[in-house]
């Protein structure tokens, strides 16, 4: 499996944020998208997830399910984390699993939350969780359904050191299983051999 993008051009509000970007990532590869604020990191991830139209170029997941779009084979985790305050952490995960095609059982919820050190809050309403705990509950969604491509936008926001290393562990496990990871991050992610995709130079190219 291989994520391949060629000549990707994305416009936001009339401004060309990404112009002619090409990259590819094969099984087990991690791509860290870096760049200053406004360089188009989020736009790139949202375009890959299928939420933004692309102006020119294209991308595809070679060897994936040809019946489904790239976004439908990806986990997307953005700034808005999709955790419902009125539901418990476990109910949030069960719903995500059912929607994303995974196992919504309580054992799976507990396993996912425990992997992020959050097993004790499975029955807590999400509104009582701290920002970091909420982020971890959102990250636990990645483990509820198996999808080959992870698109993570600033996954370490609000995470403490222990949670960052737990996130590193689940990302390494995903890559070890042949997954592909594209993450936008300002901080260091605990990944060896990740390639850096620098935005900014292309983003400022004249239209």
């Amino acid at each position, binding site marked *: 499996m291989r994520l391949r993008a060629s000549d990707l051009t994305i416009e936001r509000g009339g401004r060309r944020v990404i112009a002619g970007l090409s990259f590819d990532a094969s099984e087990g590869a991690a791509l860290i998208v870096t760049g200053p604020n406004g360089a188009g990191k989020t736009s790139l991830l949202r375009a890959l*997830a299928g939420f933004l139209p692309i102006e020119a170029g294209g991308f595809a997941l070679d060897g994936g399910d040809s019946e489904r779009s790239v976004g439908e084979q990806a986990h997307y985790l953005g700034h808005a984390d999709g955790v419902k305050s009125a539901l418990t952490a476990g109910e949030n995960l069960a719903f995500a699993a059912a929607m994303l095609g995974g196992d919504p059982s309580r054992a799976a919820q507990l396993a996912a939350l425990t992997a992020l050190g959050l097993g004790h809050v499975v029955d807590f309403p999400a509104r009582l969780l701290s920002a970091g705990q909420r982020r971890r509950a959102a990250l636990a969604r990645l483990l509820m359904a198996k999808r080959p491509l992870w698109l993570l936008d600033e996954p370490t926001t609000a995470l403490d050191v222990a949670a960052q290393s737990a996130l590193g562990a689940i990302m390494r496990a995903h890559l070890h299983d042949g997954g592909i990871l594209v993450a936008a991050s300002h901080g260091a992610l605990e990944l060896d051999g990740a390639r850096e995709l620098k935005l900014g130079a292309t983003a400022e190219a004249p239209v």
Partner: protein
Amino acid sequence: MTSAVLALFVREWRIAGRIGGGASVGIVFFLILVVVMPFALGPDLKLLARLGPAILWIAALLATLLGLDRLFQADHDDGSLDLLINGSLQLEIAVLVKCAAHWTASALPLVVLSPLFGLMLAMAPAPLALTAATLAAGTPALTMIGAIGAALTVSLRRGGLLMAVLVLPLTIPVLIFGVAAAEAASGSAAPFLSPFLALCALSLAAIALAPFAAAAALRHARE
């Protein structure tokens, strides 16, 4: 797919129940309108009985639209709309399930309680039952048409007003046929069946078409 449909339906119900907005606000609003009417119109029981079906219908229309603006906005704001779009369900089906959950949580209680409220308008038993039947047949159309407006205004901060302006003209045919059928039931010379069937047709058409319109609007709103 059935499990995803069920999961979405249960989630909508849980959120409606815990946040406590949905059903109770609509019912209280409905009740307020119906209770206030006799004070405004005066104690003429004949007049009240004659206007009863129309009052119940207007109250139901406004109460249904009241809660609809948040139908997709909450999911849009917290990012869970991404989950619906890239999930295993077609977005059109997800829209339909959300509307079904919203209808059962907020419109169905109105239908069930409308005979009780109609008593305050001095309506006789037979018109009460038939008015409830027209509400049951017509409110799905209101919810589905409202869902289009809710999807179109999903990314606007204060989209509630715009949504009402967009949606109200489209609900006028439902109101006309609904009140026509309900008034026929309360003893006027007009036939009951033909407006009632038109009402059913409006609901069925809205159920069939609105999910596509709402889903298309939601996909655009993600940009």
